[in-house]
């Protein structure tokens, strides 16, 4: 059974169908990159997995549990397993990096202070941010904010991490660092990852499979090698558009 599955999901915003019968699945331990032009529903897809949005029709399941129909207790259990990295990091401005990372442990898991400290240290070390632990979000760069957000996403030892544009607005060097971090966390901790990205080069390098969305539908889902060689006109069009953008 797949860990995450979308079955014919439809989502409409003010008469505009953003997801139009979307179906795909994510296997345990894999990295799935979701790519596609802007406005095709990539971030909307991600938000359905943790019920920040609910589908108008269709089903989204995590480990067999229907996310939109489940009880609040089941939803808490699902969210407990899922870390989410937002585009801007979504760190609380009045807390230091360390306090931001410790937040879910303090507020939800009610762990003793020494255990929280150990877990926070380990999460910050995993994203190579130990030096910035006592800084406030406004005092660190965009890339560091994303890494801090990632530390917060993995500090509860989540087995799934959802990444929403982890490299957007970052320079190429920092983008490579973040991409290799995604891969490292997946290989080292066995974290299942769903990555929404515009960075096709990065996706080809770190993903196990790439899903191309077009007009709210999945038009291709294949390994990076198959994706690059695909004869699907939508893939060819997307690849040539990306190539043009890079040139």
């Amino acid at each position, binding site marked *: 059974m797949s860990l995450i599955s979308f079955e014919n999901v439809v989502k409409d915003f003010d008469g505009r169908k953003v997801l139009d019968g979307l179906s795909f699945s994510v296997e345990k331990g894999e990295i799935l990159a979701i790519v596609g032009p802007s406005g095709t529903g990539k971030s909307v897809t991600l938000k359905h997995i943790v019920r920040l949005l609910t589908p108008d029709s269709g089903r989204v399941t995590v480990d067999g549990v229907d996310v939109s129909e489940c009880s609040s207790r089941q939803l808490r259990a699902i969210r407990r397993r899922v870390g989410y990295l937002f*585009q801007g990091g979504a760190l609380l401005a009045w807390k230091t990096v360390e306090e931001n990372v410790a937040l879910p442990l303090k507020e*939800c898991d009610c762990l003793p202070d020494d255990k929280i400290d150990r877990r926070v240290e380990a999460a910050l070390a995993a994203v190579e941010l130990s030096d910035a632990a006592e800084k406030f979000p406004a005092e660190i760069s965009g890339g560091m904010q994303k890494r801090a957000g990632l530390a917060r996403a993995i500090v509860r030892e989540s087995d799934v991490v959802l990444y929403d544009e982890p490299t957007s607005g970052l320079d190429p060097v920092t983008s490579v660092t973040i991409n290799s971090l995604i891969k490292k966390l997946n290989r080292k901790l066995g974290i299942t990852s769903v990555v929404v990205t515009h960075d096709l080069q990065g996706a080809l390098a770190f993903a196990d499979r790439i899903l191309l969305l077009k007009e709210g539908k999945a038009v291709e889902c294949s390994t990076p090698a198959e994706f690059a060689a695909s004869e699907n006109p939508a893939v060819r069009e997307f690849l040539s558009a990306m190539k043009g953008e890079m040139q």
Partner: protein
Amino acid sequence: MSFIREVGRTTRVMIASIFAFPTVLRSRDSRADFAVQLYKTGIGTLPVVTVVSLFTGMILALQVGLELRRFNQEMYLGAAVMITLIREMAPFSCGMCLAACVGSAIAAELGTMKVNDEIDALEIMSISPIRYLAVPRILALVVMAPLVAFFCCAIGTLGGGIVGSTQLGVNFEQYMSSAMSMAEPKDLFVGLLKALVFGLVIGTVSVAQGMGTSLGATGVGRATQRSVVVSFLMILMLGYMITRVFYR
């Protein structure tokens, strides 16, 4: 339709927050945040509140005093100023100051958090934004509003006394004794009750507007503006209703 939706959302925030009030003392973080909010609401607004209430009392004393002088009744100036302040003007000006200074800041802060995905991030971590963000802010307003209103009343009365003694020839001691003799415990109770209700309404409206923000920076501006306008209107309407209930 959207008006009904807004009322529904605000009511939901109010009910959920009231039920979650006891949780503010549960964790160290919540207690610390509550203390910060108490400071911002109480001490942070004192300069504005002092100026507003001082001049409210002075204007009131001047207008009422000039009329009383026509009938040689200046000795009742203190009573007139005190009763007007304690029943109406103190909670009213306190409400206006809190809506403008604190409510708008809450709506802007939570609105910015909403558009930056910080509120969604809390939800995903299973941290209730109502418990973590709304309760400390609303409860601080509920606790501090009556105290600020009482302070408004004291400063306003003092301002009235200054005008009475310097411009209307009313002895300050006579003014104060007239003020203290006419005010009843019921007036104080109603004034403080009004302030408490205003605090709850300002907090709830501001939190609901902030958390309901969409459309980026424009949305934050709109939420801030709406929180102030809706709070002002609610203060006026509820002020009348409470007066109607207690003074028939």
